[in-house]
């Protein structure tokens, strides 16, 4: 671990200064940061080929039971005429919202945002299965785990790969490098650099959820005339 009490306090001080001054920093989103990390992800739809290696890797790494999935790749209708037809691919998974509806509605605090990483996660023990979070999620990425009977979803491999210091399983397994994972608070991270270089969009951003899943669109603006 490369953090210390001293760094932690310094970070806290800096955060407080930002908060009191009401100044938005250089990063994309501002939140209360305790440990300096705020993980986000980019899905580059221009690079994705829809092979679903990420889906399988996720299931294996996180022991996701059959019948449910933390991650889906949704394939669009074919675009264009054969032989020039292609598809658009959309990653359906937790957006790790900064203002997460699932966390806001949870009656027991089972659904929470990890302050050290900004990851939205679920305390399976605390969850009673009222399904309020599943209804509240505008991205419809939550499900009831058929084994634990608790609400579950992607947690960026927080308790599996990330805990071992590795990248999330989906990122590791992608043959196209279509997924970029990293700390949005680190200006030198690959994710921040990619965000500065590419045009990105966030799904249902107008709902005010501040999703930390960024997407590089495989489209050129408004195309329906």
């Amino acid at each position, binding site marked *: 671990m490369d953090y210390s009490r001293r760094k932690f306090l310094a970070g806290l001080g800096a955060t407080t200064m930002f908060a009191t001054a009401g100044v938005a920093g250089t990063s994309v989103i501002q939140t209360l940061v305790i440990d300096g990390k705020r993980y986000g992800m980019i899905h580059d739809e221009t690079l994705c080929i829809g092979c679903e290696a990420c889906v399988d890797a996720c299931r294996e790494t996180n022991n996701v039971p059959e019948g449910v999935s933390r991650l889906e790749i949704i394939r669009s209708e074919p675009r264009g005429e054969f032989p020039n037809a292609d598809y658009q691919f959309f990653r359906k998974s937790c957006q790790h919202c900064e203002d997460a509806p699932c966390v806001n509605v949870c009656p027991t605090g089972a659904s929470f945002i990890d302050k050290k990483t900004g990851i939205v996660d679920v305390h399976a023990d605390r*969850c009673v299965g009222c399904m309020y979070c599943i209804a509240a999620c505008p991205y419809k990425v939550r499900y009831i785990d058929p084994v634990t009977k608790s609400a579950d979803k992607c947690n960026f491999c927080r308790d599996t790969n990330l805990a071992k210091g590795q990248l999330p399983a989906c990122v590791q397994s992608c043959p196209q490098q279509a997924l970029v994972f990293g700390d949005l608070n680190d200006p030198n991270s690959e994710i921040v650099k990619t965000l500065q270089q590419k045009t990105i969009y966030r799904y249902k951003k107008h709902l005010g959820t501040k999703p930390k899943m960024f997407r590089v669109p495989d489209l050129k603006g408004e195309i329906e005339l």
Partner: protein
Amino acid sequence: MMESLQQALHFDSLVWHWPIAIYLFVLGISSGAMCLALFIKWKLPSAEKAAKNPLIKAAAILVPSMVIFGLVILVFDLTKPLHFWKVIVYQFANPTSVMGRGVTLFIVYQITTFAWIALVFRKELETLLARFMPWAMKILGILWLWDLIAKVERQLEFVIAILAVLLGVYTGFLLSALNSYPLLNQPVLPLLFLASGLSSGIAATILLATTFFSANAKTSGMTLSHRLEQPIVWSELALLIILIIGMNFGGEMDKVSIDAAISGGFWAGVFWVGVMGIGILLPLMMNQITSIKVKHSNAFILSSAVLTLVGVMSLRMFILYAGQMTPA
């Protein structure tokens, strides 16, 4: 037909099923019955005893039993019913959760309404205790507690009135907190559910009082109940119209959502026939065209109560299902 019913009751974006609609329905009845009972008690001539009034008797049964019934439904609808106690233990873990605050409200509401019922029916309860559990009268400082409640009767009733209204709006806030569904995420929903809850509470109280406690048109409080019903039904109608027009003034998904809900398909049928027809227009019309004599018959009183209950249950089902049809 069967296929379209299948589609109406099972679709991908549906998370909460009919048990939640029943839960919202019975909580509304409890809230409405409590408001009515307080109204009647406040209006009764002081010589008349509230404990002898059939409507207050019926309300005293409905108020706690409907909340308990609703909570039992809710607990069995959890994926982990045996873990329900965590909702009570951890209810303050998330201070802004509507459901968490609902749990707090249920606890306070149940305690205060039980205290109120114990006060109103003190004589009757004392007789029962003296006969079946004479030892209970001597221990626990039970008489002292009763005297204490009697001292704060006014204040208690004031608090209960507020709690009953909160329970009514809670059923709406539970759904309007979901900005994932445009039709549910409407500020008017808590008011609509409060109004329809009052309607159903009054109807259920009248129904129970007439069938079990031999109430009739001459029972004191009955005229008051009917006088309350009219403006409440009119305001329900107004709130529904405001909801429809307001959503048509809204963003793209607001328009798509309200259009999908009321302009075709199974749930549009439930809305126009059940909510509007049976629940609102028919009772209003019956009230306009019938004579006083007919209105005072038990058959009329019972049938309009049943129509109102069917209408309010239809509204709960319609909002819950049609609301979840269109995600934001």
